[in-house]
């Protein structure tokens, strides 16, 4: 009895330490989210008194082709910001740890890691502006380079053609994003017992086999974290679109976060913008729960 109560007290002892975080969460995320959800049931120009319209904004959203198109674009953005960088980051981390580090030393591996991480340090807006110059139809470096190597016929208005605009934006996203998974995976690989690789090598495993049977299973928790983090970032992708295309050409690169911004600040239709933001937030929360569950199940099985 005494033991139980003291254990209970012991268990509750950490609660005061959660208060600052809870207060911050309530003030910065909880209350604004509830306010945003409340606004989504109104028609409001951002000033004056909001008019209650119930579920009208959501009904309109359900039939809004541009909104659904923006979500479809977001699926490709997830490929560009989460899936491809994770895959490339995995391969690069393995190459840097398993090959470069072992054959050329940790300094060479660190230098290469820093180079690949560099785009992460640049503000996205700056990176976006630089890429919009590189991809410019007239005198942009990409088209000039294609011309210089005899492939001038491929020169293109990369961001102006609906067939290539989203792919071009995705290319920029991959370039910006790779550094993040790389550093996480490399640090994950630090804790992998080198004897595993040695044993595999003695058994005659090729690099590809070591990558598949040692690297990936060993850093599965990191892969989950990276995928979760980058997928949420992809759903929130805004500055890339704002700087590079502003949703164009003709809505071809529109994503929900930008679409929401347009309704907030361009159309002064704050109620509708809030509805988009609410749907997006709920999507992010749902996705996070799914990821965490999958991760929990995965780790549970391992134990």
């Amino acid at each position, binding site marked *: 009895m005494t033991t139980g109560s003291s254990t209970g007290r012991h268990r509750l002892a950490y609660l005061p330490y959660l208060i600052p975080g809870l207060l911050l969460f309530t003030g910065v995320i909880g209350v604004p989210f509830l306010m945003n959800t409340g606004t989504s049931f109104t028609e409001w120009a951002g*000033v004056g008194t909001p008019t209650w319209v119930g579920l009208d904004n959501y009904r309109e959203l359900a039939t809004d082709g541009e909104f659904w198109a923006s979500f479809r674009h977001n699926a490709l953005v997830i490929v560009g910001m989460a899936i491809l960088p994770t895959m490339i980051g995995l391969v690069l981390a393995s190459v840097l740890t398993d090959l470069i580090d072992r054959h050329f030393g940790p300094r060479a591996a660190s230098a290469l890691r820093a180079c690949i991480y560099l785009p992460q340090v640049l503000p996205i807006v700056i990176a976006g502006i630089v890429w919009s110059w590189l991809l410019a*139809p*007239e005198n942009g470096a990409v088209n000039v380079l294609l011309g210089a190597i005899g492939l001038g016929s491929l020169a293109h208005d990369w961001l*102006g053609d609906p067939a290539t605009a989203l792919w071009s934006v995705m290319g920029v996203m991959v370039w910006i994003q790779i550094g993040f998974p790389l550093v996480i995976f490399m640090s994950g690989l630090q804790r992998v017992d080198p004897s595993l690789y040695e044993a595999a090598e003695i058994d005659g495993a090729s690099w590809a086999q070591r990558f598949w049977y040692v690297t990936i299973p060993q850093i599965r928790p990191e892969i989950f974290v990276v995928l979760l983090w980058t997928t949420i970032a992809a759903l929130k992708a805004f500055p890339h679109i704002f700087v590079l295309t502003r949703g164009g*050409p003709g809505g071809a690169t529109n994503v929900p976060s930008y679409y929401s911004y347009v309704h907030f600040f361009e*159309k002064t239709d704050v109620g509708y913008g*809030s509805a988009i933001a609410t749907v997006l*937030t709920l999507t992010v929360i749902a996705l996070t729960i799914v990821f965490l569950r999958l991760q929990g199940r995965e780790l549970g099985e391992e134990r």
Partner: protein
Amino acid sequence: MIKRVTGAALLAVLAAGSQTLVACGRSDNGEPGGKELRVWHYEAPESGMGVAWNEAIKEFEATHPGVKVKLELKGFEQIQKTAPMIVNSNSAPDVMEYNKGNATAGLLSKQGLLEEITPEVKKRGWDKLLSPSVQVVAKYDDKGIMGGDKWYGVPTYAEYLQVYYNKDLFKKHDVQVPTTFDEFTKVLDAFVAKGITPLANGGAEYMAQQYVYQLALDKADEPWVNAFQRYTGKTDFTDPAWTYAATTFADWVTKGYIAKSSVSTKGEDAGVAFMSGKFPMMFSGNWWFGRVAKEAKFDWDTFVWPGAKMTLGSGGNLWVVPKGSKNKQLAYDFIDITLQKKIQNILGNAGGVPVAADSSAITEPRAKKLVDGFNTFAQSNGLAYYPDWPAPGFYDQWVSQTQKLMNGDSPQSVLSGLQKTYDSGLPK
């Protein structure tokens, strides 16, 4: 996550930011006894307006001993996006440059956030200085629609579009300045025949839509403009003027008058390309005038759109006095100074379009031509405003639809997209 909560969160953060500004403003102000006039605007210091208003500040301080002007330079978008919150807070400046039009000044006037200055306008005679077509953007009705009966702002400059041309390229290719639309088309053909794209364009921003609107204006009249801009009648995007405009613009892209590769080009880049001598012509506003004069390395001049009886243009953005201004009388004094002939002449000679200048005092030849061109349109009610004004968010829709037009979508589908946004933005 924080970003995604967006909306209300952003508004809340901005509101909190404005409260901080309030605190700063109070401590800066010391006592609110009219010791400081807080002015916000977004004109570049080297522009005609920037030069003239700096002079006005000096004049104001000289004529109001003990009062200091605290000028804060903002960005156009910064004021466009945050004005409702700023004006609705205690941190509102005393006088602020604000965007004209139904979705901006009109919206705030309807919400009661701007001071109605009609008595002051009459008392100081500002209504006598401004031509009726310039006044339209300063006056709003109870629904916030421009051209109403109550003054909520005062423009001290104006703007309109004209064709900037590279005289050196015209001379080199033996091309004459066109005076009719047919001659204009022949000039365009002549450049295309030489492998030169004749018109600079930026499809990712305002330029493409302004070509389309000008083409529509070539087939339109004043009631058509009023119906479109001021809802005095029904606007039908399948009418002959809009159909001609969209079809002709698409045709111009096909013929190479406008580069298809300019879909993703921004206005700034198009202007820079013109100033670097890449394109012989650029159809754009007098806001480029000062920069072209400073940066173009070739001989250049301007002409109005050949054959146009109406063109894009209006009174400039407005001086408004927020309801929360603590020094309204000082604000009116300052506006009054910016309308004085001396300041207006400085504005004109620095490449702006003054609204109350002494035209004989504008001595720079190209500036004089610019002002004379404007006066001609203003006096014949030929200022047709801008295509994105009638509906909130219409600007983005115009960008999107003209990009589609350049990428080969049919004029009918593009016009139908515009109709949808226009109709949904009509005042309820």
